[in-house]
């Protein structure tokens, strides 16, 4: 098995692919010659994410059933060393917060209605600086929408769910991403002491695919930092990386105070400049690591002036569209963004190098585009959006070919 390679690895085709050893559309297929050492299995994104989370050291799954995260619940019950069925989504995240405060790395999976109920507690966990992973499987909304119809409609909410503060959000754009980004989610949760979201969609986690297990990098449990805690340990005193060393409640060495309210470094509820600094650091500790958190695939076509920008399931259609356009002689590059929050400055820099940029998103009006360029974007920024079903490659090809 390959190991997770260094970021920004260049392959021989000059394609910049971060983190992953290969991109989804570039797996060796039959036409490229059958590999004899492949271990093809028939699986789904839910299984890959669940397996990767467990191998990365996540301790327990706490869930409340909801479509289309059903399989996470089923797999969680089967695979996690500890599983708890909670009576509602508020309980889910409260239980997770308590377990995280006590030193465990809990995981849940839900969809928008569950996330809506979790919102207050998610803010609590964020302010308490508790590591945990939430898998959000997007479905058609608003409201209960249609539970069995896929969508990419939750990014705008996640971008503001901790109002004004970044909640690290990774978005797999293929099965290999399901594996590696699940690992990165655990790594980020532990090392930045924060809840982390894996943003998926119905299509990504419920459609089964043939997949080569040999393409999955090996992974082991993420090491939990063991802070040196002399006398005077303070649960919110940031260390060198901007992150406060974590000690669980219940430990026998130092008192630990955790609170959802504005607090000083000692975890006491105080309204003063020190407490404001602790509050500001909630954002700073994540934003200052934006470059390390950044995952994307920039698939370049020499001479291309047009760029497709996409994420998640729509990125798969965008891959096919790019190939179809190439077959017509149209030069188009593709940028697949896999770390949606925070957005690294290098992403903007890449986009700046193109003359026309098309955001491909399965939602009403381009949530990523709006986050990046606002409601009145520059003329070169365009949107290809669709509500109610996946965007087909032809629906991407046609607007570009007509240019």
């Amino acid at each position, binding site marked *: 098995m390959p190991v997770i390679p260094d970021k920004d690895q260049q392959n021989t085709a000059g394609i910049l692919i971060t983190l992953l050893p290969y991109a989804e559309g570039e797996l060796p297929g039959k036409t490229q010659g059958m590999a004899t050492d492949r*271990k093809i299995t*028939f699986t789904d994104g839910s299984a890959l994410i669940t397996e990767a989370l467990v191998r990365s050291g996540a301790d327990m799954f706490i869930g409340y059933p909801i479509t289309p995260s059903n399989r996470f619940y089923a797999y969680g019950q089967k695979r996690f060393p500890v599983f708890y069925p909670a009576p509602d989504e508020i309980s889910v995240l409260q239980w997770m917060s*308590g377990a995280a405060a006590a030193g465990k790395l809990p995981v849940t999976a839900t969809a928008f209605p569950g996330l809506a109920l979790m919102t207050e507690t998610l803010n609590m966990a964020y302010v308490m600086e508790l590591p945990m992973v939430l898998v959000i499987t997007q479905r058609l909304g608003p409201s209960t929408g249609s539970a069995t119809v896929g969508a990419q409609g939750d990014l705008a909410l996640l971008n503001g769910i901790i109002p004004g503060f970044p909640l690290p959000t990774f978005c797999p754009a293929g099965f290999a991403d399901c594996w590696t980004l699940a690992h990165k989610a655990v790594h980020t949760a532990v090392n930045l002491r924060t809840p982390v979201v894996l943003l998926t969609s119905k299509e990504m986690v419920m459609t089964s695919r043939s997949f080569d297990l040999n393409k999955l990098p090996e992974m082991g449990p993420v090491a939990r930092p063991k802070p040196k805690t002399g006398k005077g340990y303070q649960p919110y005193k940031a260390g060198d990386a901007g992150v406060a060393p974590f000690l669980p*409640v219940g430990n026998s060495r130092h008192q630990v105070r955790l609170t959802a309210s504005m607090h000083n470094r000692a975890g006491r509820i105080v309204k003063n400049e020190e407490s404001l600094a602790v509050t500001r650091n909630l954002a700073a500790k994540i934003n200052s690591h934006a470059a390390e958190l950044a995952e994307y695939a920039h698939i370049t076509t020499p001479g291309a002036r047009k760029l497709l920008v996409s994420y998640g399931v729509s990125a*798969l259609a965008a891959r096919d569209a790019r190939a179809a356009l190439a077959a017509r002689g149209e030069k188009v590059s593709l940028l697949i963004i896999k770390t949606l929050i925070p957005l690294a400055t290098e992403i903007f820099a890449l986009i700046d190098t193109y003359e026309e940029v098309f955001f491909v998103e399965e939602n009403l009006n381009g949530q990523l585009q709006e986050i990046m360029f606002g409601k009145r974007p520059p003329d070169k920024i365009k949107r290809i959006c669709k509500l109610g079903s996946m965007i087909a490659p032809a629906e991407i090809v046609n607007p570009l070919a007509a240019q």
Partner: protein
Amino acid sequence: MTAELLSGTKFPFCPGCGHGPTVKNIAKALTACGYRPLDVVLVSDIGCCGLVDPLFATHTLHGLHGRSPALATGVVMGLNNPGKKVVAIQGDGGATIGLQHLLEAARRNTNMTLIVTNNLIYGMTGGQVSGLSTNEFKDENHIADEAPPFDVCQLAHQAGAAYVARVNTPKSITEKLIEAFATPGFSLVEIASLCQPYGAKKMAQLRAWSREEVVLRQAGPVAALKVRETETLLPESRVLPAMFSAGVPGRIGVMLAGSAGGGVQSAAKLLAKAGILAGLAATMKGEYPITVGTGFSVAEVILSNNEINYTGLENPDVVIVVTNDGLLKARPRMGAQARIYLDSQVDKPTDLTAEVFDFHKVAGKKGAALAAIAHWLAVSGLLPAAALRTAASKHKYGAEFLKIIAAATELAVVQQEPRMR
């Protein structure tokens, strides 16, 4: 020793507030039970009782309104250490908004103590009534709400709490807290509490407005963390080696439509696996109503010589329909290019060109979908029958599936000329 549990921070409560004595009694009872500061995790709620955590020298968690029992439940799950004492505290408002959490902790007999300080009102927001405000209190204060209060002690007891007590007399608080702390499992102590600005100003008033004292005990298993050894979701045994060759030209999309309970999803999955065994890339997705036991069941399979990115199937190349439920879903997707196979039980639209076979007759209701797949593969030659047989043989119903495949293959030979109706 009691002082060791307290931080020495000045109490923030109003003069005469019941929370002060409650805090002191908690410390006293914990000390009596032998707990040292770092043996205790105190979980506080929102409201005036949520001001208690700085007063303790223990570990403290200060969370959200009504959620302290749930947060404490999580702490118990995470610690998994009976030597540590987890104590949650909330007011009557918190117990109202978080009633589900309280009941759940009791139902699980979570090893923790919940203290509900009931001063009959929301003190922090101006004296509004809670779900635990008694009608005696409301009548005296001319509050027009006749709904009776929750009896949080009875509710917790009925839900499974190991120990429950209601205390209306300050001198009994320590005793009841010691009993609660010493009881394994979930214990709850409801403490009547004065609120000088908005509630009862004197103990006589408070006693008159409160429910009667009660102690309820029951034996039951205490929630314990179960850590299991589990097996990988990606076992080597499920690897599907390419052992056959396929005649699929590029990419082919198949739609299989039938009814719930008709084995549509299983048959589609076998088709996908057969494709993989023949060296193809495959995807498969299912669609069915949320009432999974009735109505349509539709599956889409894509087989390709190349890796598959986009998994949509707007225009299936092959549509196989085995029931009328399936026809309703599949009909709008039957493009002019699609090859269509129908079961003879399906009411074929007169304007539809299709080939009709007796799949049900061959394989029954539960096997018709698989029979149709086997038949289509036999007549099309896209995948060898051995690939489907190999995929089917790995299934727990493999023996039955193999019989169906054999019969369907035979059917294909017998009925080389499709009959139209």
